[in-house]
């Protein structure tokens, strides 16, 4: 087996040094009747070539986004990632290192995490950010728990524009912790009255912008209403590129900002691994979940970085910890931070403008199709269309014609009222005029 360096001779010598007659002597603590004698019912070892063949065959049965006109979003977005990003994250010292618990030999990781935290704070216009979460939805769940700790209240109001899967994650976590949730109905027109839902017992309001239907929402009045009632505003985004063009939640009064960072630097990868972004105000930093990297000096007075404020964390606080989180999403955070560094302010703003311009163009084209109307008054690179007939069937028909034409809202909200004819459509810089024309043609013939 190519990954196992010990030879039969080595094993014999080592057993002799240990004083064991055979390797099973070392497994003597396993109750004798539970020690497996037979081989597992699994195939035997395979060469690299054989594994490649098998897995390539499986991969070949999927339709890669890059092979067709592709307009799918709703929480994960296909953007162009520079070649240097993937090269750099595969460097051994990044890829095959552990959590930086020994900072003297992990300054590479700690240094980029410090940069990452600063970039995320700048992007969201917040004071501080942590070193990443698993993904946007788990970050959202943690944000609600954090708000409960800060306000000592246990009721969260979830906007009807919040990604339904994020809402489900929060609901699951809240139910398990015996906390309360107020669910607003699905809100494709961004017309809900969240402010009326903020009672004195509400800990936080969770609002997404751009929301799952693509609408941009002005968070300022909601933040003001929250603060009047002693509640916190949790702002959510699933498309980080939008912050290159859209007013950031930190400028609209958000107390905690959580988002999905996949769309910068990371592949679609069928849903994971992704990287959760998490930022807040300075005054709440000790209630934050997840790892934090901080600046310090070494014994010679040179600047260096360490993981810090770990007294919040499970390995110190155990059942009193702010969260049970141990792992973050280090390598995905690295991909994010490299891509963001390559873009810089100029590149990010331009990328965001291109996305918006393309989406506006597509919205105008689709608006002209018989039986199709654009629902949104405002959007970034994603919007919702209403079609004549069943949206899921139309999306299937388009797929059969070789166009991946968005997400039927019924897939996210199987029992949602009035959503059966809605499709959420994303358009990024990867889409060409030919792609858009193919989409319009496929949709026209699928209704």
């Amino acid at each position, binding site marked *: 087996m190519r990954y196992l360096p*010990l030879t039969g001779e080595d094993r014999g010598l080592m057993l002799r*040094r240990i004083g064991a007659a055979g390797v099973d002597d*070392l497994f003597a603590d396993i109750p004798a009747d*539970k020690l497996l004698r037979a081989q597992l019912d699994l195939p035997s070892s395979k060469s690299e070539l054989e594994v*490649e063949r098998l897995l390539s065959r499986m991969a070949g049965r999927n339709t890669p986004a890059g092979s067709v006109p592709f307009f799918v979003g709703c929480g994960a977005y296909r953007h162009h990632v520079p070649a240097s990003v993937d090269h750099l994250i595969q460097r051994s010292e990044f890829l095959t290192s*552990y959590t930086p618990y020994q900072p003297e*030999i992990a300054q*590479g990781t700690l240094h980029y995490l410090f940069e990452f935290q600063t970039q995320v704070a700048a992007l969201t216009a917040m004071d501080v950010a942590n070193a990443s979460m698993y993904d946007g939805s788990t970050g959202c769940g943690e944000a609600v728990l954090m708000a409960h700790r800060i306000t000592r209240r246990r009721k969260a109001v979830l906007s009807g524009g919040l990604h339904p899967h994020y809402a489900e994650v929060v609901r*699951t976590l809240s139910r398990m912790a015996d906390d309360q949730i107020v669910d607003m109905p699905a809100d494709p027109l961004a017309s809900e009255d969240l402010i009326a839902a903020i009672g004195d017992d509400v800990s936080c309001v969770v609002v997404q912008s751009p929301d799952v239907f693509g609408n941009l929402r002005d968070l300022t009045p909601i933040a003001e209403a929250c603060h009047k009632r002693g509640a916190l505003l949790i702002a959510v985004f699933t498309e980080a590129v939008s912050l290159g063009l859209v007013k950031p939640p930190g400028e609209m009064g958000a107390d905690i900002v959580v988002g999905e960072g996949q769309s910068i630097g990371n592949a679609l990868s069928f849903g994971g691994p992704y990287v959760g972004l998490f930022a807040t105000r300075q005054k709440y930093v000790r209630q934050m979940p997840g790892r934090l990297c901080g600046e310090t000096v070494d014994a010679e007075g040179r600047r260096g970085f360490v993981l810090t404020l770990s007294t919040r964390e499970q390995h110190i606080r155990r059942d009193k910890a702010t969260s049970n989180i141990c792992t973050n999403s280090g390598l995905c955070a690295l991909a994010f931070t490299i891509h963001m560094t390559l873009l*810089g302010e100029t590149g990010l703003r331009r990328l965001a403008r291109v996305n918006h311009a393309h989406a506006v163009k597509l919205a105008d084209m689709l608006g002209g199709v018989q039986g199709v109307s654009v629902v949104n008054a405002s959007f970034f690179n994603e919007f919702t269309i209403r079609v004549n007939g069943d949206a899921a069937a139309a999306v299937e028909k388009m797929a059969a014609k070789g166009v991946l034409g968005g997400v039927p809202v019924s897939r996210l909200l199987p029992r949602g009222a009035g959503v059966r004819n809605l499709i959420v459509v994303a358009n990024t810089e990867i889409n060409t005029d030919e792609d858009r024309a193919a989409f319009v043609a496929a949709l026209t013939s699928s209704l």
Partner: protein
Amino acid sequence: MLNNQGRPTHAGEATAEPHRTFTSNRALQMEEALIFEIGRPDVTGVDIDEPAAFSPRLGGLERAAAIGLPGLSEPEAMRHYVRLSQKNYSIDGGLYPLGSCTMKHNPRLNERMARLPGFADVHPLQPQSTVQGALDLIDELARWLVEITGMESVAMSPKAGAHGEACGIMAIRAAIEASGEAATRRIVLVPESAHGTNPATAALVGFEVRTVPAGPDGKVHADAVRPLLGPDVAAIMLTNPNTCGLFESEIVEIARLVHEAGAYFYCDGANLNAIMGKARPGDLGVDAMHINLHKTFSTPHGGGGPGAGPVVLSKRLAAFAPVPFVTRDGDARRLVEDADGTQAFGRMTTFHGQMGMFVRALSFALSHGGDGLRQASEDAVLSANYVRACLGDLMSLPFGDRPCMHEVLFDDAWLKDTGVSTLDFAKAMIDEGYHPMTVYFPLVVHGAMLIEPTESESKASLDLFIATLRDLAFSVKNGDRDRFSGAPYHAPRRRLDETRAARNPVLRWTAPKLAEKAVAAE
């Protein structure tokens, strides 16, 4: 042979003080600034054309103020990150004996497979007809995990070990609710030797934590568990093999007692690497166990994630697994995403789990085969015992000289009155080119040093590691405290001041002007 004719090949006189350099660089070890100090907002390493004029539809919510993001051209970015990488230790670069973390070789075949467009470039919400191969891969990995552990099914979506723990404990809570005992079964038993995530998870899911004492032999005993069990207990969370590197030999009896009391048995599977093909948690009475794909199945740790933590479940819990999950419709695979109409307890994450990690894990499993996985576990255990046998005379074994599983635990009794602490010893290992072992964990022994060599080390590599630790141990015994007290001397940084970092947290870069103003204001 080195050609030494005509030029000197000796290294010259060693000096006590390293020569100071103008740049503070030390040859290949480069000092590197922050991107905020070297980047400029008007520089970009990505060429993008400005779009043609259009009228925006942002509803008046345009971002006006500067964001504060520096940019680097591609060559600058390349150099910045390459230099940073050179400040990291890695498993590719050296032995990484972190107990309970399983830092094994990360095959590059796995990286290539995960990057196949059919896996890396598919969207989680594409029509299911266009991702049958991806669903098949999840299902196939699930089959391997179920067979290796002897369990009924597996929930694939949890994103890391602790996330998997939460998933397992939530499934237990859902089962307890279904049987109408939610109000009474409020307690989860956790041994004091457990990972900190265990009690944190139980608390997260609304349970009260009660501690089970470990026996003097480092194990949890049925006699210690029995008096704690009752109608108020929901579950026990045991790590097996445990964090002292020992197989819990009374596990079958403990499982029987727990089940008899109407409670569930959660097993922390962090140490599965010791027992693949040797024992199956399902045969031991386990109801739920997470598997760290980033440990046992070689998906790279990536400097602290991403991980992946699928949870295998017993028959009693299988129905409560969260959405989404894959089922079979004849030859086709179908993704169930809606919890309604099922007993699923809810949802753990946005999409279907860590697909990129699933591909890597299956690539690893296929490469090994059932026979290779068993051999890997045997080699991991053999290597840990070899280290134990070769160091046990110098370093102290808290539970006596008896076989361990895939990691060997030393305590600091042998360092008593030497003036050298576990931390000092660990830092001196850095100077010798080794990543330290896990230190001060588990908490049940004093000054713990937990060594896990894994199956990836050759005998020559183990022998050099052992010789190095013996040399360090002799230094301790000879009173050579300098070698330890100031260590590391040769790393990119000397010891870092963690107290200062925590007392006055600086968690982001701030422009110098602003920083000066802040100081002036204080």
